[in-house]
């Protein structure tokens, strides 16, 4: 309480305490900088949402169509070359023992026949007669997420039942995955550009502050303030301004992101959703929308303000230290 009593003793207000002489409060563009950083953060949030959305879709496609392999076993009912049982069973055993596959299920004969009936003639509409050709046994195998089929699969299938064909439903999904990759690359590029612009904006604001306070800085420098002290004052100020801009931009981005997440929901989860605002029940609409925001986005969004603050701090430090080199 020493300070308080001393202050009372001299009867002076506490308000003038701890002035650093640089008066940066007035020297920095304290409305323009947060506004620009807010705009940048808003764009970054959109780019992030795009990247997260694209990667979720890519994941889903990878786990879906791209993960299915179709295996055809000619003469599936014939006895296998080695061991007991049929050829079809031998192939099934290979697939179910392979750790790359999560499941391997034979396609029902009758269903296959029904599917192929229009092409193979057979009984057409009337129905139940044996097909003209002997149908191969068909097995659908599901790869574990993110796993490619083993390189020696074809050889192992061949030795279990010669003539077996394994096919991955890949070309179509490969194209989709390539598309999502390029979407992600675009998002990353957008983030990079936004970061670059943010750095340029903060640097310009800092230089404006330096120019406005040139005289004071020279005096404080002359009194023995180190580069770190002066740069620290500027960095503190830009950090506050950039942080507030970051928070504003992030908050502004949330409504748009909720809307996007709702629109994207059917692609991401396959679940149906009410297409319009359910009878004016805003709370239900919002909680539904919130539940659809993917987890990575929940993690990335709160990081945006601290990241913009860090960009502000780093850029100011760098700009001021470079500028101070002109002083002896």
């Amino acid at each position: 309480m020493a300070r308080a009593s001393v202050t009372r003793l001299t009867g002076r207000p506490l308000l003038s305490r701890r002035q650093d002489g640089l008066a940066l409060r007035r020297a920095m563009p304290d409305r323009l900088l947060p506004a620009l950083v807010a705009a940048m953060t808003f764009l970054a949030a959109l780019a992030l949402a795009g990247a997260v959305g694209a990667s979720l879709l890519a994941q889903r496609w990878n786990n879906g169509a791209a993960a299915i392999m179709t295996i055809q076993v000619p003469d599936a009912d014939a006895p296998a070359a080695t061991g007991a049982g049929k050829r079809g069973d031998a192939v099934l055993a290979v697939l179910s023992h392979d750790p790359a596959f999560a499941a391997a299920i034979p396609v029902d004969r009758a269903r296959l026949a029904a599917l192929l009936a229009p092409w193979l003639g057979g009984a057409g509409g009337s129905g139940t007669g044996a097909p003209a050709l002997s149908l191969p046994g068909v097995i659908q195998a599901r790869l574990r997420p993110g796993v490619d089929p083993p390189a020696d699969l074809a050889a192992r299938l061949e030795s279990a039942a010669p003539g077996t064909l394994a096919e991955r439903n890949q070309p179509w999904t490969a194209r989709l995955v390539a598309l999502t990759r390029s979407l992600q690359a675009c998002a990353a590029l957008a983030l990079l550009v936004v970061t670059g612009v943010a750095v340029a904006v903060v640097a310009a604001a800092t230089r404006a502050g330096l120019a406005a306070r040139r005289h004071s800085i020279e005096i404080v420098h002359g009194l023995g303030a180190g580069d770190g002290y002066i740069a620290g004052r500027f960095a503190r100020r830009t950090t506050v301004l950039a942080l507030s801009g970051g928070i504003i931009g992030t908050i502004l981005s949330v409504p748009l992101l909720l809307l996007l997440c709702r629109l994207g929901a059917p692609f991401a989860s396959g679940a149906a959703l009410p297409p319009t605002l359910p009878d004016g029940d805003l709370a239900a609409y919002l909680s539904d929308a919130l539940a659809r925001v993917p987890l990575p986005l929940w993690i990335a969004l709160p990081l945006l303000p601290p990241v913009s603050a860090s960009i502000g701090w780093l850029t100011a430090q760098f700009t001021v230290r470079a500028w101070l080199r002109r002083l002896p």
Partner: protein
Amino acid sequence: MIRLDEIALRYPGRDPNRGAVLQRISADIPSGGFRWVLGASGAGKSSLLRLLSLSLKPTSGQLEVLGVSVNRARRAALARLRRRTGTVFQDLRLLGELSVFDNVALRLRLDGLPEDRIELEVTEMLRFVGLGRKLDVRPHSLSGGEQQRVAVARAVVHRPPLLLADEPTGALDEKQAIRLISLFEELNQMGSTVLVATHNEALVRRFGHPALVLERGRLVSHG
């Protein structure tokens, strides 16, 4: 110890034909010495003090201040050296944004002193120079002499090992000037090295002490 060895100074952009502002200056000033810096207007007194306060770098020659070789020192070492120096600039260089109190307190805040000590020391210092009632005033609403005393208070409040004062009494009356130089002498007796540039011959005669005399950028006598 201050050592000047063949120091020359040119201001950048100054007509090169007009020659250097300071030329071939060599001198040693021992620690704890008191020196006047004398010479006609334009002789280079302020320029010499600017070199010693590290506001400028010499164009050539070796400079050593408080045992630190200025030519070779790193930026952080130069900043530390500036904090150990108290300077009254001829143009005062007070911070217009700050109160009188904060102008003086900044000096101590840069050294990281605790606020309650700053409060005591600054208040006492400003009382001594007769500004005890003007702590919360901005410098621009002070008279010239009052501003000069704020600058002096800021220069001596931390009892620096080196005090450089450029015309510190220019705007003061005789009585105040004597009081101020007495303060400098007190500091000098406590071990500080003191250099005072002045035109006030009465003051020089009154207090004695050796002088560095400059004439058109050359040192014509020292000691």
